[in-house]
């Protein structure tokens, strides 16, 4: 008789069990999910064996959604409810988007909503559908729940775009271990397999975005030196340019359906010209003709030119000459186009590498990083240091921008700047946070506005207000402000200029669960259990390593909280678990800080000890 091994859902795994982790390339045109199995990274196919999931979501009038190939197939028949290339709308205000094939609406703050038969959808919700689909694919393939995922974003994504991506994962019920820049992920995929030290350039031309990054690989540290790109330029634009060329030759676009058919023909033509030198183009009833590779080159050259401007800038930012680069790596489906390879080769003076499938390379790199962050690989092996792609600053007098953290600063990063009041008795200061390279506020992206209140009344110029920007490893910003002369720290709430509030996300989370017909309470409980396990494991391992750092009575207090959390963890009350997690965090906070300090001091001993006061 076989014995069933019964495992409670949510029970923490044994210390040596592998945690399931995956890397997701959430692309404009296609998305992929990959994982590391038996030491090698592989893309996970769907049940039909297809690796690419078209990043297309169709909303139907019965409230159901269709994702991927099936949605793509309905693009022509139902263009307004079939949402493609939603990545281009992520974290964007209505005014920034311009023309769109969909019916777009926006609320007072400018947050974009797409009108569909199933109601208004934000780009974050559409992306969440794609992520949920990939997550389900991985869980089915791996036979268990994912402990966490690494999601890639274009290096050029600004703060709101990164935040929107993270929000989408949250709505999809995925734990994000890290947002990783796509070129960095590609470099991981290449670098780990070969491992020569030196400078690398990653040229990533995807469906909707272009990224270029310059990285240095040295002693297991991948350090991004500079990054640049264009968040609104990709292979899709080549298709649009091709359609415009056909229109000049007489093709008439009279409906969204015709537009979709022509765009599809453009993509197919472009792909076929990779292998063939001339192809016939036939869109029944709309256009008939042919196209040569040379004609295509002429049409897309202006777009390729636009990619070479950021390439030059990145080299300049890093103070590097093209000939110092060891290898150029090509990423993104659009780099299959022979003309793109030719121009990149001319620019860098060397044949670019493309041995890893350009569609899969980013997901593979992300999977390796996810495996490492989940604790499956030896963490000392490799470290990725990313940079912030665009400068962060605040508005000063005259509508000008004062940069606080410059572009290409290694993240995490922190920078403080002091400001003062300009009126006698001024008790509040309005702070407007922006991102961008231009000098005028109106030319930069507005990230947030907040008001620092409770400044003690003083003469103009006497108050000293320190504004601190901190950017985490995902490129997400937090801002704090403090008045220094009286030591008043005022509470500030950063309200996103647009984007989603926590309440919005909660609501979407709830909506998505209702549609998935799963149980909201069970899901919330599960989240709290995962959090409790992480906290218990972290505190226990800290106690095991550094018990000597406990002060009198502290060990007992922490032990008490651990026991309380364990008790709560056995129950079914998510709020009680959350409260016990918070209590344990508070009880162990001073100990954790002491451990980190001790670690920092230990790291600085050695030959520097006499110099260190």
């Amino acid at each position, binding site marked *: 008789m076989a014995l069933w091994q019964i495992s409670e859902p949510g029970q923490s795994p044994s210390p040596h069990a592998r945690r399931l982790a995956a890397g997701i390339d959430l692309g404009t045109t296609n998305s992929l999910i990959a994982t590391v199995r038996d030491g090698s990274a592989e893309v996970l196919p769907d049940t039909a064996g297809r690796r690419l999931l078209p990043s297309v979501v169709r909303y139907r009038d019965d409230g159901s959604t269709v994702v991927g190939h099936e949605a793509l197939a309905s693009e022509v028949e139902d263009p307004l409810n079939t949402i493609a290339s939603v990545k281009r709308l992520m974290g964007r205000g209505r005014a920034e988007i311009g023309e769109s094939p969909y019916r777009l609406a926006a609320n007072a703050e400018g947050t974009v909503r797409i009108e569909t038969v199933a109601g208004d959808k934000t780009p974050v919700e559409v992306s969440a559908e794609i992520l949920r689909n990939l997550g389900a694919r991985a869980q089915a393939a791996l036979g268990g729940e994912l402990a*966490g995922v690494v999601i890639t974003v274009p290096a050029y994504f600004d703060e709101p775009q990164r935040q929107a991506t993270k929000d989408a994962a949250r709505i999809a019920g995925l734990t994000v*271990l*890290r947002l990783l820049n796509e070129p960095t992920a590609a470099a991981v995929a290449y670098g780990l397999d070969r491992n020569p030290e030196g400078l690398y350039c990653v040229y990533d031309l995807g469906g909707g975005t272009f990224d270029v990054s310059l990285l240095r690989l040295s*002693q297991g*540290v991948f350090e991004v030196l500079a990054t640049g790109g264009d968040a609104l330029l990709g292979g899709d634009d080549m298709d649009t340019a091709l359609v415009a060329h056909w229109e000049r030759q007489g093709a008439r676009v009279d409906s969204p359906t015709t537009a979709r058919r022509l765009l599809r023909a453009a993509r197919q033509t472009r792909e076929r010209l990779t292998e063939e030198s001339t192809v016939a183009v036939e869109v029944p009833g709309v256009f008939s003709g042919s196209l040569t590779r040379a004609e295509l080159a002429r049409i897309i050259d202006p777009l390729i030119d636009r990619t070479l401007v950021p390439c*030059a*800038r990145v080299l*300049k930012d890093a103070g590097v000459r093209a000939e110092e680069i060891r290898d150029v790596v090509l990423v993104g489906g659009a780099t299959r186009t022979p003309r793109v390879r030719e121009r990149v080769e001319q620019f860098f003076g060397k044949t670019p590498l493309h041995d890893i499938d350009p569609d899969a390379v980013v997901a593979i790199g992300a999977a390796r990083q996810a495996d*490492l*962050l*989940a*604790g499956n690989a030896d*963490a*000392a092996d490799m*470290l*990725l*240091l990313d940079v912030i792609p665009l400068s962060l600053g605040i508005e000063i007098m005259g509508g000008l921008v004062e940069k606080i953290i410059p572009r290409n*600063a*290694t*993240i*995490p*990063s*922190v*920078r403080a700047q002091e400001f003062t009041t300009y009126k006698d008795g001024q008790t509040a200061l309005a702070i407007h946070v922006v991102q961008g390279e231009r000098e005028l506020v109106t030319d930069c992206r507005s990230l947030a506005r907040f008001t620092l209140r409770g400044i003690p009344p003083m003469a103009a110029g006497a108050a000293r207000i320190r504004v601190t920007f*901190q*950017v*985490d*490893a995902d490129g997400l910003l937090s801002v704090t402000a403090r008045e220094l002369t009286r030591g008043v720290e005022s509470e500030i709430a950063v309200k996103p200029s647009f984007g989603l509030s926590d309440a919005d996300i909660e609501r979407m989370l709830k909506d998505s669960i209702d549609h998935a017909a799963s149980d909201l309470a069970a899901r919330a409980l599960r989240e709290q259990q995962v959090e409790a396990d*992480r*906290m218990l*494991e*972290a*505190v226990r391992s*800290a106690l095991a390593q550094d018990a000597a750092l406990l002060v009198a009575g502290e060990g007992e207090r922490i032990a008490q909280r651990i026991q309380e959390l364990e008790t709560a963890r056995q129950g079914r009350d998510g709020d009680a678990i959350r409260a016990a997690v918070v209590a344990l*965090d508070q009880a*162990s*906070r001073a100990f*954790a*800080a002491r*451990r*980190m300090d001790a*670690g*920092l001091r230990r*790291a*600085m001993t050695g030959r*520097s*000890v006499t*110099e*260190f*006061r």
Partner: protein
Amino acid sequence: MTQDYFRLFGLPARFDIDAAELARRHRELIRQWHPDRFARGSDEERRVAVATSARLNDGLKVLRDPLERARHLLALNGVSTDEETDTVMDTAFLAEQLAWRERLEESGGDPEVAAALTSEVAACGADKQRALASALGEAADWAAARRLVRELQFLRRFERELDEARTGVS
């Protein structure tokens, strides 16, 4: 209070710095403190890791750059360079600046003129940096160091403009 970045890296607080040693210590510390090392750590550990690694990265940036390093040393000694609020500069220095800028403007941004100016400005900057090293060293002349930092900042801004004129890349 200003965070002492020399202390953070366990380096002596002086202008002359061993750049290779700074890079080595940064690498060693960031390996240990990067939030990726605490992906499964407690909330507090993760907060501290972000804050610590952010300071390490900013510290490297500050100490690696001579101008920022000098400003940092002055701040640690209670001297602010007040570059935003105090715009009074030495007259002779301003006259020289003006003459350079006129030459560039009159040439209509000619790359050759820009190249000639670049080497002049670089030589002037090198002199000032040597003077700065001595003011921040044994001389401990904070007033002179403050003036030199402000002047070097002017030169740096002009060098950037020259660079754009020369290469056409901004």
